[in-house]
């Protein structure tokens, strides 16, 4: 490195300036991924559709053809029905969709994950879910008035034992 002092100094200065630029770009400029005064609402379910509607009793002839250890009286489709979910915000329907069962055979739970941005403030949220296609009515329904703050993350989840959850 003999005689390379000018290169060390000048090259070092250039690298330093570049490094400062890299350091600045590693945290700036800031990125705004949502407008101001908005709250995030996430609607996320993992729930298996009720396949009882597809079940039927086997006839006596059918049962007789089966080995003794396999004579279950009821037989159901392996595939689960989709679940249907609706979300109303302040009386307006803003989400309505069917979620198909997962798995190659369609025997797994339906899964749903939706994110919505809402203006901060008080909102009336109504969620409905139908997991049994036997009827047009919704099996689960809940309404809640919530006050959403700017930057708040609000979740609507579902658990079989507790029903629809707002948190």
């Amino acid at each position, binding site marked *: *490195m003999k005689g*390379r002092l000018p*290169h*060390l100094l*000048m*090259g*070092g200065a*250039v*690298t*330093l300036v*570049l*490094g*400062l630029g*890299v*350091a*600045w*770009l*590693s*945290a*700036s*400029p*800031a*990125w*705004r*991924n*949502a*407008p*101001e005064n*908005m709250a*995030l609402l*996430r609607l*996320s379910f*993992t729930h298996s559709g009720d396949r009882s509607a597809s079940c039927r009793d086997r006839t006596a002839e059918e049962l007789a053809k089966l080995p003794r250890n396999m004579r279950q009286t009821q037989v159901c489709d392996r595939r689960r029905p989709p679940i249907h979910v609706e979300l109303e915000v302040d009386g307006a329907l803003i989400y309505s969709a069917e979620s198909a069962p*997962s798995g190659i055979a369609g025997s*797994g739970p339906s*899964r749903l*994950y939706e*994110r919505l941005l809402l203006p901060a403030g008080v909102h009336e949220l109504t969620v409905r879910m139908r997991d049994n296609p036997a009827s047009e009515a919704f099996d689960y329904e809940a309404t809640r008035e919530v006050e959403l703050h*700017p*930057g*708040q*993350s609000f*979740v609507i*989840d579902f658990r079989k034992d507790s029903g629809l959850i707002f*948190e």
Partner: protein
Amino acid sequence: MGVRTALKRGFDRVERPLDRLFGPDWNPMANLGTLSWLMFWIVTATGIYLFIFFDTGVVNAYQSVKWLSETHWLHAGLARSLHRYASDFLVLLMLVHMVREWAFDRYRGKRWFSWITGVPVIWFVYMSGITGYWLVWDELAQYVALTTTELLDALPFFAEPIARNFLTPASLSGRFFTLMVFLHIAIPLLLLLMMWIHIQRITAARTMPPRGLSVLTLAALVIVSFAMPAVLQGPADLARFPSTVGLDWFILGLYPVIDLVPPSVIWTGALLFTVLMFGLPWLPPRKDKAAAEVFLDFCNGCTRCEADCPYTAITMVPRSDGAPFPQEALVDPERCVACGICMGSCPSSTPFRRSGPLITGIDLPGRPLSKLREEVIAASADLAGPGRVMTLACEHGAAAAPEKGRVILPCVAMAPPSLFDFILSRDLADGVCIAGCAERECHNRVGAQWTKERIARTRDPLLRERVPRDRLLTLWAGPTEGARLDEALAGFSKDVAALEPMPGKRSLETDATGEEDPR
């Protein structure tokens, strides 16, 4: 002028001032690959050091990063800043390296392997960076975690939406951080493997920049790390969402795009980009010239061609013709780019030979030594008057355009030193200019270095001492340095014109009579 040529000339124009600031051998643009390796090792070393202080867990992760950044800023905080900035530099260097190799047309033909193996490197670098940002578990990490998992959930592979792990503070488990630490170690290891494969078809690949460049780069990074320590944003809180984040535009630069367009567009774009990158060497393919060929009658297995080949295209194998030498050279046509450097290195490559046809130990079928000899003789016919200068030019340098008295070669190292002697001693010119490509980086990696060492008599085949050095000019100039070339050639022509007549030179006709060389 095509896009590639314009870009290549643009690079040359940018790199010339850097030659003056850093010196050609330390020019960072000519050391993009080795600097990337240096960055990788800095990131690895600082990552191992940070792991001593880092605590995985939903709360502990952020607290430990805050503690090491603030309480132990002098060493652990420095390590964290170096870890981040070296990662950013790695991304920058990698992308410039990729564009530059494309512009210099070193990505297709026989060079496809290095390009193809570089594509997974891009993705591994990004994945390493993204998983690293996740571990800090600040607001940026939360944004990265949510955006990444929502993007991944758009793929039909995952049984449970991964984003559900980030629904509420209670839904996130410390186990997830353990998984992320594992990924942040496993992915860089895969990256290292791919980087190693990436350089496999390069002879004696350098994985470290010149020491001086390493020192100044590291010093600059340390100063930057103290002057602008890596930012730690507020702690992640899943009950809130970070609507504004200070983004690392090198590693996370695509995240705003992910925010703005549907996941299907992102995945389709990523897939198309990857396919395009993999397919680029064949869009369109380049038809390389025929690979070098070995002529065993003139090969004594001296290994010089193997040592000089820049692309590991030559291996030495046991002798197959019964000649009393243990080895012979074998050319792999899949790797040979026909640069001709092996021909220049072969001790049999001497244009002086008068007995029998001019065949050398290793020759280019498309441009054999005998043809090169004829070209040199033909070029001399165009030279007249005092100060006749013949130029042996690199096709990638300033003298790449055809000109009277100029012989253009794939690489100047294709010309054996005996050719310079031949031109001068047979009175084909009064001076020889060896006009290579830019000194900072030979297009064929080592051609400039080998040429310099052969002339300096430190590398075989040596240039004979009898060749007057004042009649030789070596000039390294990039494609945009035509004016410097012309000026240097004019000055050199004037200089050789002023020299005393060269003693002992003889004409080609005298060769034909079979007279011995008086020298």
